[in-house]
């Protein structure tokens, strides 16, 4: 266990204490923060480790949300429904990945972006199953009170975040992570040394989709009502990329911090500049990226340890 990973686990553990301090609003923000962190950590697998800029987060978030919602409506218990969505998302993404990940750079970005549109249209048109544009109601899980519900979904999302972080750490230290790192640096050379890059990229795409899908499932159960324009919102694809860039591409601790800082900014800006909040947020993000191009994580070496990078 490296120091950075330990720091990440400690931070996640700290987040768990939130219900001790806050009310329903804090829990709502906490749940969203965990969800964003799941997005950012997941995106980091394919975007940060393998270097493929995916815009497909919203596609799998929506897919997971609908899969879970449909299963819940059929009377399947929540845990089973969420795990089912996770597995389906993994398989679906890995299969799509074998095709999409043949494209590189901008082409891959556009192709992954189109996945969101394709999924949304599919859901829109499968009216019998999904309710189409009318959206889908999801039965209340417990009904034992607002605060109890909020606490339950907060911990559900937090638990998923913990699992995601653990998997990301395991991947980054494993042969898979090493291989993805090779692919990001030089895919031609990777193939040449015997690395099955198609397989590695597909697994990476699957892993980056499955936790997002599970988060979508928890989200659907949490908000009780979903419609295509809500869960297939393209912002769900863009935000994790901004978070990862803000935090520090490739570093799990960095993107985790990026997610929380991003949400903090979003909330503060939204409260104070309700008319022009997206504009102000945009300016802030651009400033951060301009002055901190390697993300928040780059502050670490400069401020605390002062280690020279290249000797």
């Amino acid at each position: 266990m490296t120091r950075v990973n330990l720091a990440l686990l400690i931070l996640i553990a700290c987040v768990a204490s939130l219900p001790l301090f806050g009310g329903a609003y804090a829990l709502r923000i906490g749940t969203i923060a965990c969800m964003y962190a799941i997005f950012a950590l997941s995106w980091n697998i394919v975007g940060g480790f393998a270097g493929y800029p995916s815009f497909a987060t919203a596609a799998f978030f929506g897919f997971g949300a609908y899969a879970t919602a449909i299963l819940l409506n059929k009377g399947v218990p929540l845990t089973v429904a969420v795990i089912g969505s996770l597995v389906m998302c993994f398989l679906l993404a890995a299969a799509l990945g074998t095709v999409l990940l043949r494209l590189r750079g901008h082409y891959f970005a556009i192709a992954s972006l189109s996945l969101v549109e394709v999924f949304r249209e599919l859901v829109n048109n499968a009216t019998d199953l999904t309710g189409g544009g009318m959206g889908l109601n999801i039965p209340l899980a417990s009904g034992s009170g607002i605060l109890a519900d909020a606490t339950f979904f907060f911990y559900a999302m937090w638990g998923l975040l913990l699992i995601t972080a653990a998997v990301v750490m395991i991947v980054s230290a494993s042969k898979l992570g090493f291989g993805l790192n090779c692919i990001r640096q030089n895919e031609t050379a990777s193939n040449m040394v015997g690395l099955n890059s198609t397989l590695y990229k597909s697994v990476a795409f699957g892993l980056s989709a499955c936790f997002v899908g599970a988060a979508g499932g928890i989200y659907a159960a949490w908000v009780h009502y979903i419609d295509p324009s809500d869960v297939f919102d393209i912002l769900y694809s863009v935000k994790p990329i901004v978070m990862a860039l803000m935090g520090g591409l490739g570093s799990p601790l960095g993107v985790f911090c990026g997610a929380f800082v991003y949400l903090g900014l979003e909330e503060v800006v939204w409260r104070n500049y309700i008319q022009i909040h997206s504009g102000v947020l945009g300016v802030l993000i651009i400033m951060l990226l301009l002055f901190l191009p390697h993300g928040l994580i780059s502050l670490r070496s400069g401020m605390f340890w002062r280690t020279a990078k290249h000797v």
Partner: protein
Amino acid sequence: MSEIRHEILHLSNVSRHFSGLQALRDVTISVNKGEVLGLIGPNGAGKTTLVNTICGVTPASSGVVTFDGKDITRVKTYQAARLGLSRTFQIVQPFAEFTALDNVAAAALFSQPGESLRSAREEARAHLAFVGLDAQANQSAATLTLAMRKRLELAKALAMKPKLLFLDEVNAGLNSAEVERATKLIHQLAAGGITIVMIEHLMKVVLNVCTRIAVLHNGQLIADGQPRDVIKNPAVVDAYLGQQYAQRNAARG
């Protein structure tokens, strides 16, 4: 060495075209175990395409490639690598952010089934020492000089435990001391029993290390045989070596 002819690689009527451009035309050639085959020819003759075709980067449009008794015409690049075909690149292809050690470890890790990252790193040290890069093991590949990067390529290729090693212009861009050093390494490898196919423009090196020479011109094999016969071949002199070279060579005897 060529008395015991044991074929390791065989190409029969291999052609490759890139839409209108015929890069390889009916190339039939075989490589025997333990040989050092020099592949020469003018720029654009198809030498690198030939290597790419064998390694599965640009599969043959027609013809058959057999390696170690297996048909490998349609195998993917990574599969060819695992079968024991390894290569260095004319334009070096390091994992720039990795240390020299991890570059070589990657080659050991992914080409050998069941290898762990830890054992791959251990093996990598030995290969780096062999090419004389042990002092640079923890330096990132981007900071190495060209000569060092060429040797790093070689260490990577060796970490794959190749049965057949392609060296694509390992000496291009090196100074004479560096060339000498690289030539010595190639001699050592050949003595160790690795079959080598080398693309090389420096005739001094070719004549020094190769046991056989094949000449490509416009995608066709125009000569194949003993070095001293091939360099006298009029077609080769016309296409590649030039009259001056032939005269100098004749004068030297």
